[in-house]
Protein backbone atom coordinates (compact mmCIF):
# COMPACT_ATOMS: atom_id res chain seq x y z
CA UNK A 1 0.00 0.00 0.00
CA UNK A 2 2.79 2.44 -0.80
CA UNK A 3 1.26 5.52 -2.30
CA UNK A 4 2.67 8.86 -3.33
CA UNK A 5 -0.47 10.84 -2.57
CA UNK A 6 0.11 13.35 0.19
CA UNK A 7 -1.87 12.87 3.38
CA UNK A 8 -3.77 16.01 4.35
CA UNK A 9 -5.38 17.13 7.61
CA UNK A 10 -8.09 19.71 7.01
CA UNK A 11 -11.20 21.14 8.66
CA UNK A 12 -13.14 19.90 5.71
CA UNK A 13 -11.95 16.38 6.35
CA UNK A 14 -12.86 16.66 10.03
CA UNK A 15 -16.35 17.92 9.23
CA UNK A 16 -16.81 15.17 6.68
CA UNK A 17 -15.82 12.62 9.33
CA UNK A 18 -18.29 14.08 11.84
CA UNK A 19 -21.02 14.02 9.21
CA UNK A 20 -20.35 10.49 8.01
CA UNK A 21 -20.26 9.17 11.58
CA UNK A 22 -23.72 10.60 12.30
CA UNK A 23 -25.55 7.24 12.30
CA UNK A 24 -22.98 6.00 14.78
CA UNK A 25 -23.28 9.10 16.93
CA UNK A 26 -27.02 8.50 17.15
CA UNK A 27 -26.87 4.81 18.02
CA UNK A 28 -23.91 5.50 20.29
CA UNK A 29 -26.06 8.04 22.10
CA UNK A 30 -28.58 5.34 22.97
CA UNK A 31 -25.82 3.06 24.21
CA UNK A 32 -24.35 5.93 26.25
CA UNK A 33 -27.70 6.45 27.97
CA UNK A 34 -27.65 2.81 29.01
CA UNK A 35 -24.07 3.13 30.22
CA UNK A 36 -25.07 6.10 32.36
CA UNK A 37 -27.92 4.15 33.92
CA UNK A 38 -25.77 1.10 34.66
CA UNK A 39 -22.91 3.24 35.99
CA UNK A 40 -25.35 4.70 38.49
CA UNK A 41 -26.45 1.24 39.53
CA UNK A 42 -22.80 0.22 39.95
CA UNK A 43 -22.34 3.09 42.40
CA UNK A 44 -20.51 5.66 40.27
CA UNK A 45 -21.39 9.29 40.93
CA UNK A 46 -22.44 11.64 38.13
CA UNK A 47 -18.98 13.19 37.96
CA UNK A 48 -17.26 9.80 38.01
CA UNK A 49 -19.46 8.38 35.26
CA UNK A 50 -18.92 11.32 32.93
CA UNK A 51 -15.21 11.43 33.72
CA UNK A 52 -14.89 7.76 32.83
CA UNK A 53 -16.65 8.29 29.50
CA UNK A 54 -14.43 11.28 28.73
CA UNK A 55 -11.10 9.81 29.81
CA UNK A 56 -11.52 6.16 28.84
CA UNK A 57 -13.93 6.74 25.93
CA UNK A 58 -14.36 3.06 25.16
CA UNK A 59 -17.82 1.53 25.37
CA UNK A 60 -16.50 -2.02 25.37
CA UNK A 61 -14.08 -1.44 28.26
CA UNK A 62 -16.49 0.66 30.28
CA UNK A 63 -19.38 -1.82 30.16
CA UNK A 64 -17.13 -4.72 31.05
CA UNK A 65 -15.51 -3.04 34.06
CA UNK A 66 -18.92 -2.11 35.47
CA UNK A 67 -19.31 -5.84 36.03
CA UNK A 68 -16.20 -5.75 38.22
CA UNK A 69 -17.13 -2.56 40.06
CA UNK A 70 -17.59 -3.50 43.73
CA UNK A 71 -16.26 -2.43 47.11
CA UNK A 72 -13.39 -2.85 47.74
CA UNK A 73 -12.53 -1.72 44.25
CA UNK A 74 -10.38 -4.34 42.41
CA UNK A 75 -8.19 -1.64 40.85
CA UNK A 76 -5.62 -3.95 39.30
CA UNK A 77 -8.26 -6.27 37.80
CA UNK A 78 -10.14 -3.34 36.34
CA UNK A 79 -7.05 -1.76 34.79
CA UNK A 80 -5.80 -5.07 33.36
CA UNK A 81 -9.23 -5.82 31.91
CA UNK A 82 -9.24 -2.40 30.28
CA UNK A 83 -5.82 -3.09 28.81
CA UNK A 84 -6.87 -6.47 27.40
CA UNK A 85 -10.08 -5.06 25.93
CA UNK A 86 -8.00 -2.30 24.29
CA UNK A 87 -5.41 -4.59 22.71
CA UNK A 88 -7.28 -4.58 19.42
CA UNK A 89 -6.41 -0.86 19.19
CA UNK A 90 -2.78 -1.89 18.67
CA UNK A 91 -3.69 -3.56 15.40
CA UNK A 92 -5.95 -0.68 14.40
CA UNK A 93 -3.22 1.87 15.09
CA UNK A 94 -0.74 -0.19 13.09
CA UNK A 95 -3.13 -0.13 10.14
CA UNK A 96 -3.33 3.68 10.40
CA UNK A 97 0.42 4.12 10.48
CA UNK A 98 1.18 4.23 6.71
CA UNK A 99 -0.97 7.38 6.62
CA UNK A 100 -0.66 8.88 10.09
CA UNK A 101 3.12 8.58 10.25
CA UNK A 102 3.17 11.32 7.60
CA UNK A 103 1.48 13.76 9.97
CA UNK A 104 2.99 15.82 12.75
CA UNK A 105 3.18 14.21 16.16
CA UNK A 106 0.43 16.29 17.79
CA UNK A 107 -2.03 15.62 14.99
CA UNK A 108 -1.30 11.89 14.89
CA UNK A 109 -1.19 11.20 18.62
CA UNK A 110 -3.98 13.65 19.39
CA UNK A 111 -6.22 12.00 16.79
CA UNK A 112 -5.77 8.47 18.12
CA UNK A 113 -7.13 9.54 21.51
CA UNK A 114 -10.47 9.64 19.69
CA UNK A 115 -9.98 6.39 17.78
CA UNK A 116 -12.89 4.02 18.32
CA UNK A 117 -13.82 0.96 16.27
CA UNK A 118 -16.39 2.85 14.24
CA UNK A 119 -14.58 6.00 13.16
CA UNK A 120 -11.44 3.94 12.57
CA UNK A 121 -13.37 1.59 10.28
CA UNK A 122 -14.88 4.50 8.35
CA UNK A 123 -11.46 6.14 8.07
CA UNK A 124 -9.85 2.97 6.72
CA UNK A 125 -12.68 2.66 4.25
CA UNK A 126 -12.02 6.27 3.12
CA UNK A 127 -8.31 5.50 2.71
CA UNK A 128 -9.11 2.35 0.73
CA UNK A 129 -11.06 4.55 -1.70
CA UNK A 130 -7.99 6.68 -2.24
CA UNK A 131 -9.04 9.64 -0.09
CA UNK A 132 -6.26 10.94 2.08
CA UNK A 133 -7.65 13.40 4.63
CA UNK A 134 -6.53 12.04 7.99
CA UNK A 135 -8.62 14.57 9.96
CA UNK A 136 -11.61 12.37 9.08
CA UNK A 137 -10.74 10.17 12.07
CA UNK A 138 -10.56 13.12 14.47
CA UNK A 139 -13.79 14.72 13.22
CA UNK A 140 -15.77 11.52 13.56
CA UNK A 141 -14.09 10.76 16.88
CA UNK A 142 -14.79 14.14 18.47
CA UNK A 143 -18.43 14.02 17.40
CA UNK A 144 -18.79 10.50 18.81
CA UNK A 145 -16.99 11.66 21.96
CA UNK A 146 -19.51 14.46 22.49
CA UNK A 147 -22.40 12.08 21.90
CA UNK A 148 -20.90 9.50 24.29
CA UNK A 149 -20.19 11.90 27.17
CA UNK A 150 -23.47 13.80 26.87
CA UNK A 151 -25.51 10.63 26.76
CA UNK A 152 -23.61 9.24 29.76
CA UNK A 153 -24.53 12.38 31.68
CA UNK A 154 -28.19 12.17 30.68
CA UNK A 155 -28.42 8.45 31.35
CA UNK A 156 -26.79 8.86 34.75
CA UNK A 157 -28.96 11.80 35.84
CA UNK A 158 -32.31 11.09 34.17
CA UNK A 159 -31.67 7.39 34.30
CA UNK A 160 -34.04 4.58 35.04
CA UNK A 161 -36.95 3.99 32.76
CA UNK A 162 -35.13 4.96 29.58
CA UNK A 163 -34.59 2.46 26.89
CA UNK A 164 -33.38 -1.02 26.49
CA UNK A 165 -31.37 -0.96 23.24
CA UNK A 166 -32.21 -4.58 22.50
CA UNK A 167 -35.90 -3.81 22.59
CA UNK A 168 -35.37 -1.29 19.81
CA UNK A 169 -32.95 -3.36 17.78
CA UNK A 170 -30.28 -0.75 18.45
CA UNK A 171 -27.80 -3.34 19.68
CA UNK A 172 -27.68 -4.47 16.05
CA UNK A 173 -26.90 -0.97 14.72
CA UNK A 174 -23.15 -1.38 15.12
CA UNK A 175 -23.14 -4.82 13.53
CA UNK A 176 -25.07 -3.35 10.60
CA UNK A 177 -22.60 -0.48 10.21
CA UNK A 178 -19.62 -2.82 10.24
CA UNK A 179 -21.28 -5.16 7.74
CA UNK A 180 -22.01 -2.29 5.36
CA UNK A 181 -18.39 -1.12 5.62
CA UNK A 182 -17.21 -4.65 4.90
CA UNK A 183 -19.28 -4.74 1.73
CA UNK A 184 -17.43 -1.60 0.59
CA UNK A 185 -14.05 -3.06 1.52
CA UNK A 186 -14.48 -6.31 -0.39
CA UNK A 187 -11.78 -6.38 -3.07
CA UNK A 188 -12.66 -9.73 -4.57
CA UNK A 189 -11.59 -13.31 -4.09
CA UNK A 190 -8.26 -12.39 -2.51
CA UNK A 191 -10.20 -11.35 0.60
CA UNK A 192 -12.01 -14.65 0.90
CA UNK A 193 -9.29 -16.57 2.75
CA UNK A 194 -8.33 -13.86 5.29
CA UNK A 195 -11.97 -13.08 6.02
CA UNK A 196 -12.93 -16.73 6.41
CA UNK A 197 -10.01 -17.34 8.76
CA UNK A 198 -10.92 -14.22 10.76
CA UNK A 199 -14.55 -15.34 11.07
CA UNK A 200 -13.62 -18.86 12.11
CA UNK A 201 -11.10 -17.81 14.73
CA UNK A 202 -13.36 -15.05 16.06
CA UNK A 203 -16.33 -17.38 16.48
CA UNK A 204 -14.18 -19.99 18.21
CA UNK A 205 -12.54 -17.42 20.50
CA UNK A 206 -15.89 -15.84 21.28
CA UNK A 207 -17.17 -19.26 22.30
CA UNK A 208 -14.23 -20.29 24.46
CA UNK A 209 -12.54 -17.14 25.76
CA UNK A 210 -13.94 -14.43 28.03
CA UNK A 211 -14.29 -10.78 27.07
CA UNK A 212 -13.12 -9.38 23.80
CA UNK A 213 -10.15 -11.53 22.87
CA UNK A 214 -12.05 -12.71 19.82
CA UNK A 215 -11.60 -9.39 18.00
CA UNK A 216 -7.85 -9.32 18.48
CA UNK A 217 -7.34 -13.01 17.73
CA UNK A 218 -9.62 -13.07 14.69
CA UNK A 219 -8.04 -9.89 13.35
CA UNK A 220 -4.54 -11.25 13.81
CA UNK A 221 -5.26 -14.65 12.32
CA UNK A 222 -7.15 -13.26 9.33
CA UNK A 223 -4.61 -10.58 8.43
CA UNK A 224 -1.68 -12.98 8.83
CA UNK A 225 -3.44 -15.52 6.63
CA UNK A 226 -3.79 -12.85 3.96
CA UNK A 227 -0.15 -11.81 4.20
CA UNK A 228 1.18 -15.37 4.16
CA UNK A 229 -0.99 -16.29 1.18
CA UNK A 230 0.23 -13.23 -0.77
CA UNK A 231 3.81 -14.50 -0.32
CA UNK A 232 3.24 -17.68 -2.23
Amino acid at each position, binding site marked *: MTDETAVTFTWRGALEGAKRCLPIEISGFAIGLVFGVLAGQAGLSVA*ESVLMSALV*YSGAAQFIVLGLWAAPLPVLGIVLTTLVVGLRH*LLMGAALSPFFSKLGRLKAYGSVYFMADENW*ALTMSEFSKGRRDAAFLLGGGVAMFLSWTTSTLIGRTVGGALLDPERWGLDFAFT*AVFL*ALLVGMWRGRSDLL*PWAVAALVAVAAHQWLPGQWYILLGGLA*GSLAGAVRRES
Partner: protein
Amino acid sequence: MSLDSLTLLTIVLMALATYATRAGGLWLASRLALSERAEAWLDYIPGAILVSIVAPVVLTAGLAEALAALAVILVASRTGNLPIAMVTGVLAVLLLRTLV
Protein backbone atom coordinates in the same frame (compact mmCIF):
# COMPACT_ATOMS: atom_id res chain seq x y z
CA MET B 1 -20.85 15.83 42.54
CA SER B 2 -18.70 13.44 44.52
CA LEU B 3 -15.35 12.08 43.46
CA ASP B 4 -13.82 9.29 45.45
CA SER B 5 -10.03 9.33 45.23
CA LEU B 6 -9.62 5.58 44.69
CA THR B 7 -12.31 5.67 41.99
CA LEU B 8 -10.58 8.63 40.39
CA LEU B 9 -7.24 6.81 40.43
CA THR B 10 -8.85 3.75 38.85
CA ILE B 11 -10.42 5.82 36.09
CA VAL B 12 -7.14 7.61 35.35
CA LEU B 13 -5.28 4.28 35.16
CA MET B 14 -7.98 2.93 32.84
CA ALA B 15 -7.52 6.01 30.67
CA LEU B 16 -3.75 5.49 30.52
CA ALA B 17 -4.17 1.81 29.65
CA THR B 18 -6.61 2.61 26.86
CA TYR B 19 -4.54 5.44 25.43
CA ALA B 20 -1.44 3.26 25.50
CA THR B 21 -3.21 0.76 23.26
CA ARG B 22 -4.54 3.53 20.98
CA ALA B 23 -1.14 5.14 20.52
CA GLY B 24 1.01 1.99 20.81
CA GLY B 25 0.19 0.40 17.46
CA LEU B 26 0.78 3.62 15.55
CA TRP B 27 3.98 4.28 17.48
CA LEU B 28 5.42 0.80 16.93
CA ALA B 29 4.46 0.50 13.28
CA SER B 30 5.76 3.93 12.30
CA ARG B 31 9.05 3.32 14.13
CA LEU B 32 9.89 0.06 12.39
CA ALA B 33 10.96 0.06 8.80
CA LEU B 34 8.21 -2.04 7.30
CA SER B 35 9.03 -4.83 4.92
CA GLU B 36 6.78 -5.52 1.99
CA ARG B 37 5.46 -8.49 3.89
CA ALA B 38 4.52 -6.31 6.86
CA GLU B 39 2.75 -3.86 4.58
CA ALA B 40 0.73 -6.67 3.08
CA TRP B 41 -0.19 -7.68 6.60
CA LEU B 42 -1.35 -4.14 7.56
CA ASP B 43 -3.37 -4.09 4.38
CA TYR B 44 -5.45 -7.04 5.57
CA ILE B 45 -6.05 -5.80 9.12
CA PRO B 46 -9.17 -3.63 8.61
CA GLY B 47 -11.21 -6.34 6.91
CA ALA B 48 -10.07 -9.03 9.32
CA ILE B 49 -10.91 -6.92 12.39
CA LEU B 50 -14.36 -6.00 11.10
CA VAL B 51 -15.11 -9.61 10.19
CA SER B 52 -14.05 -10.64 13.69
CA ILE B 53 -16.32 -8.09 15.35
CA VAL B 54 -19.42 -9.14 13.41
CA ALA B 55 -18.86 -12.88 12.95
CA PRO B 56 -20.06 -14.05 16.40
CA VAL B 57 -23.26 -11.98 16.14
CA VAL B 58 -23.98 -12.87 12.53
CA LEU B 59 -23.12 -16.57 12.73
CA THR B 60 -24.09 -17.59 16.26
CA ALA B 61 -26.63 -15.16 17.75
CA GLY B 62 -29.63 -16.64 15.97
CA LEU B 63 -31.76 -16.71 12.85
CA ALA B 64 -33.05 -13.13 13.26
CA GLU B 65 -29.54 -11.70 13.39
CA ALA B 66 -28.32 -13.86 10.49
CA LEU B 67 -31.22 -12.83 8.24
CA ALA B 68 -30.92 -9.18 9.23
CA ALA B 69 -27.22 -9.36 8.37
CA LEU B 70 -28.13 -10.70 4.95
CA ALA B 71 -30.53 -7.80 4.45
CA VAL B 72 -27.81 -5.31 5.39
CA ILE B 73 -25.34 -6.87 2.95
CA LEU B 74 -27.91 -6.76 0.15
CA VAL B 75 -28.87 -3.14 0.78
CA ALA B 76 -25.26 -2.03 1.24
CA SER B 77 -24.12 -3.63 -2.00
CA ARG B 78 -27.10 -2.21 -3.91
CA THR B 79 -27.07 1.33 -2.51
CA GLY B 80 -23.61 1.80 -0.99
CA ASN B 81 -25.39 3.99 1.54
CA LEU B 82 -24.31 3.48 5.15
CA PRO B 83 -27.23 5.14 7.02
CA ILE B 84 -29.79 3.30 4.90
CA ALA B 85 -27.99 -0.01 5.46
CA MET B 86 -27.92 0.62 9.21
CA VAL B 87 -31.61 1.50 9.45
CA THR B 88 -32.43 -1.57 7.37
CA GLY B 89 -30.50 -3.76 9.79
CA VAL B 90 -32.12 -2.28 12.89
CA LEU B 91 -35.64 -2.54 11.47
CA ALA B 92 -35.02 -6.04 10.12
CA VAL B 93 -33.71 -7.35 13.42
CA LEU B 94 -36.56 -5.68 15.29
CA LEU B 95 -39.12 -7.30 13.03
CA LEU B 96 -37.43 -10.70 12.82
CA ARG B 97 -37.01 -10.97 16.59
CA THR B 98 -40.78 -10.77 16.98
CA LEU B 99 -41.24 -13.38 14.23
CA VAL B 100 -38.54 -16.02 14.74
